[in-house]
């Protein structure tokens, strides 16, 4: 059997192809996190409420959890579902960007750990919309989650900006 396959010159090429796919797959598709149904429902709810008009959302090629929000054939924003670590667990949040990649809405959808849930506070999250990350207030009892949120939002914003540039 092997011998017969081996006789075909294409085998190494196929194998190499399979190899390549398998190397690329985990990093691009498999490596993405699958949000729970609850997180997805909350995200959908938040997006619907925020845009308040007939919108269509479709995943962008950067990440299947990041969406382009389209209204009447034009892009009105981007919504990104992202997971970040708390001290001993992960939490899920949603970031909405304007077409110019300014952060216009940030919401914690699911916070799992017993400590640090204070970061879900809307007033605290609002700071991200109009302040430098360095100027965001600390929260007593939620130090780790605060730092994680700051890092996660900074990196997400950078990723989205880079992606937008790459699409031009």
């Amino acid at each position, binding site marked *: 059997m092997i011998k017969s396959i*081996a006789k075909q010159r294409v085998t190494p090429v196929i194998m190499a192809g399979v*190899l390549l796919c398998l190397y690329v797959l*985990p990093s691009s598709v498999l490596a993405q996190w699958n949000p729970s149904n609850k997180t997805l429902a909350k995200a959908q709810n938040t997006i619907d409420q925020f845009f308040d008009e007939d919108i269509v959302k479709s995943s962008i090629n950067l990440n299947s959890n990041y969406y382009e929000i389209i209204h009447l054939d034009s892009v009105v924003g981007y919504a990104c579902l992202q997971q970040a670590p708390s001290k*001993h667990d992960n939490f899920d949040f949603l970031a909405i960007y304007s077409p110019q990649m300014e952060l216009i809405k940030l919401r914690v959808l699911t916070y799992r750990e017993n400590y640090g849930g204070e970061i879900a*506070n809307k007033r605290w999250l609002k700071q991200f919309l109009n302040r430098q990350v360095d*100027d965001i207030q600390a929260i007593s009892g939620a130090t780790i989650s605060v730092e994680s949120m700051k890092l996660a939002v900074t990196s997400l914003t950078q990723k989205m900006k880079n992606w937008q540039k790459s699409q031009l």
Partner: protein
Amino acid sequence: MNLKLPIFSLFLTITVLSHAQNTAENILSSNKGIVLGGYAQIDGNFNLDDDNKMNSNGKLDVHRFVTFLGYKFNDRITFVSEIEYEHVVELYVEQAFLDYKIKDNMSVQAGLMLIPMGIQNLYHEPPTYNGVERTNVDKYIIPTTWREIGVGLNGRLDEQSINYQFMVVNGPLGYDNGTANFTGKNGIRSGRQKGAEVIVSDFDVAGRVSYFGMLGWNFGASFYNGKSETSEFEADSTQVGITMMGIDARYNNGPFQARGQYTLANLENTAEYNAKTSSDVGSKLLGYYIEAGYNILNRKSDNDLIAFARYENYNTHEETDGITTNLAYDRVDRTVGLTYKLNKGAAFKADYQLRSNEASSKETKHFNLGVAVWF
């Protein structure tokens, strides 16, 4: 010869396939598994004379070294434990409970848990507070680290910005075969059962509600109510009723930080308890502290250098019943110090303390150095 390349490719493919499976598996199971962590404080304590020179030998101590071990069975079920070495040779289990999430923001917990009283009993990782040692309000009024066995409910209301916690637990052991664990100096501290072959005669309740809806602020209110435990069966004179209440607040604004706590404990039946056991426990314990700190370094740097000052008063004889009030138990600590945070989880600490009590006009002076770690 011809076989070599295909076999090699196949081998590689299998390797990569299994790698892919593992990656996928890891991703699917990223929300479960073993969690490791820990914290430690390594202290140096030095007593000083009037000229700020050492007047006795100093003490260096690996005061606490705690390893956190958690296991997440799935999104709903988690086991949390902390194994603690105190002063290197004392081994304790600081926490060991099963956490079962009945909703995203609500869980039932059962096992050995921290009593939710005040700030430091819950948030006791050394880099999270200023000062080498925990406050003495948290040592003598709240017997931190206070943990007992029971069942509780723990949750968060996101819309209302409220965290809450309620539990039913065993109480501290006040009387153990002729020995009185409650004393005038230490209050109920020596009665903590710490989960070790706990004696239960009565179940107690504890709870805490905190509000984080105001930017920069965190307010808490705690309560505890019940009876101490006794090794005697149905012996009233060996038990005291315990009602403890406390409020606390923490504030952060840019480089400025402040916190304060007020804790009050009413003990009932102390006259009978003291008469029976020849102890001198007070009928009312009261403690409070207020602390302010300022980060001297630019906040944009990763390091923080916090200069702080704290005033605390703790009196384990605020009131007494049938015994003489000992003024030496009305104590005041004034502390100034520095916390140099290299990172959120690693800090060097230094502080200088003046301790006094109502029975003496003399202050004692203390200098403390510490290494604080949390990961």
